[in-house]
């Protein structure tokens, strides 16, 4: 099983610390690398890709440092953020060139498969210079996946793609992850990774602020109240019943566009989830919907960044 390991990895440029003492182990599946612009995401990706040497610490792919070892690129690939590609080549020439430089036995066949994967068959014979931004991203992904690498690093891969293309690319990446590949996607757009990433690494100012599944991260944030939206057959009576729970310190009646309900703030998520059904049953109230409102990746991210 392929794994990426960062052990106290730091990287600085002169006096500027881009990445500071990051440690983590990434295995098969999709990992989202999140952070505001300038948080050090690209530097981390480039260290994983062997393009940057860590100034301190280690970056290892299956126990081997990728920097200065070009053979690693038989198993590892990176889709860079910059949209530049060889504008004078056709999409097919570009992907085929990648296949040939990977010394694949049948470069033509590999290029055909990779281009089909990103649904660019119709435009494959056009010069890349005539491609839209989204098409360039897709041809870059095709060129990167042409040799079926075990580790796929993508830097802002959805830039410039329209919603349909994004959904398709997400499906492609899910399929690749299901085959046991290690996929790391850097993005500053949270919606892209909300449903895609099994795990997230949140970078803030060069440091790793949190890692794991975003719901697990959220549950560990005990200093932040958990907020639930609850709809029931009698919201007012339910609100009164919940206030008797010591862990509930705020209940608010809500009438937004999604209908009426109550917003409950609690310090203890598990206490509320145990107390709520009992309180509803005792009061003869039917629960219609219970929804955590701050367990999204977006709220987890904003909590971490605000710290």
């Amino acid at each position, binding site marked *: 099983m392929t794994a990426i390991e960062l052990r106290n990895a730091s990287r600085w440029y002169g006096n500027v610390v881009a990445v500071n003492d990051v440690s983590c182990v990434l295995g098969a599946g999709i990992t989202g690398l999140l952070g505001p612009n300038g948080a050090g995401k690209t530097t981390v990706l480039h260290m994983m890709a062997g393009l940057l040497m860590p100034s301190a610490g280690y970056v290892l792919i299956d126990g081997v440092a990728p920097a200065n070892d070009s053979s690693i690129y038989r198993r590892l690939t990176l889709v*860079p953020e910059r949209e530049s590609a060889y504008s004078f*080549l056709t999409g097919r020439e570009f992907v085929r060139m*990648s296949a040939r*430089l*990977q*010394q694949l036995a049948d470069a033509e066949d590999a290029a055909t498969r990779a281009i089909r994967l990103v649904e660019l068959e119709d435009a494959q014979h056009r010069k890349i210079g005539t491609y839209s931004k989204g098409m360039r991203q897709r041809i870059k992904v095709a060129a990167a996946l042409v040799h079926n690498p075990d580790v796929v690093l993508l830097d802002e891969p959805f830039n410039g793609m329209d919603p349909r293309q994004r959904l398709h690319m997400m499906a492609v990446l899910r399929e690749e992850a299901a085959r046991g590949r290690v996929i790391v996607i850097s993005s500053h757009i949270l919606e892209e990774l909300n449903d895609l990433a099994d795990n997230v690494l949140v970078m803030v100012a060069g440091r790793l602020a949190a890692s794991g599944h975003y719901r697990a991260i959220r549950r560990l944030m005990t200093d932040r109240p958990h907020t639930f939206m609850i709809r029931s057959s009698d919201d007012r009576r339910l609100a009164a019943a919940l206030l008797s729970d010591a862990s509930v310190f705020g209940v608010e009646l809500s009438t937004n566009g999604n209908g009426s309900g109550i917003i409950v703030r609690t310090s203890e998520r598990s206490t509320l989830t145990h107390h709520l059904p009992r309180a509803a049953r005792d009061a003869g109230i039917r629960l219609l919907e219970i929804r955590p409102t701050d367990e999204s990746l977006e709220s987890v991210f904003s909590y971490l960044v605000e710290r």
Partner: protein
Amino acid sequence: MSAFTVDRTLIWLSARQLFAKRRAVLALGLSLVPLVVALVFRLLVSNASGSSGDFLIGLARDLVIGALLPLTAVLFGTTAFGGDIEDGTLLYLLLKPVARWRVVIWKYLIAVVSTVAVMIPAILLPWFVVRGPDLPIQVPLSLLAGLVVGSVFYCAGFLALGAWTRRALVVGLLYVVAFEMVLSRNLTGVKSISAREFALAVSQKLLGNSAALVEKPVTIATIWTMGTLMLVVGVGLTLLKVRAYEAAERL
């Protein structure tokens, strides 16, 4: 699939890259300038005057080897890596299981071959127009040999310039004007590190006494020693830059 496939792909990409740019068209245009000059000469001067030899030698020395060769080498040499580093496409080569020295060597060789290929018409076409009994085929072939030598050294320097500076074309042009067109023609000491002088010396050596291309050519020993040094420094510096290329620095 083998290393041969990799080499073939690198050659193909490098050539496509050099000739995809408008500057290649400019270089081709420059190479035709001597033909125009030769046609004008042919129209104005009678064939019987016996001055064709002097004309062709002067044309080769002052225009082709003296100006067009370094200009063409600047265009191709600085483009070979400059473009990749500027727009980040170098990553697509570095993220492959290909040794970086291999990328550098092929880019360099293709820059040399392209420079020579573009300059061949600059010698052969004028010769064809003004040829006569005093201008056997050995004359243009000797001049072409000098062109090859000049290209080898010029491209090594300009390759490094393209890898290390963002304004490689401007710096390269300044070098051509200041060093090759002014200093190396006037300062004796500078001749021993001038690619132009190396090219002229090799051509003169092959021409023998049949034509006076240059009064005091640098010795072949100087070309071997100083040329090798220039070659190693130029290609070595480029390799150093590419080996240490860190994409994030350019973001």
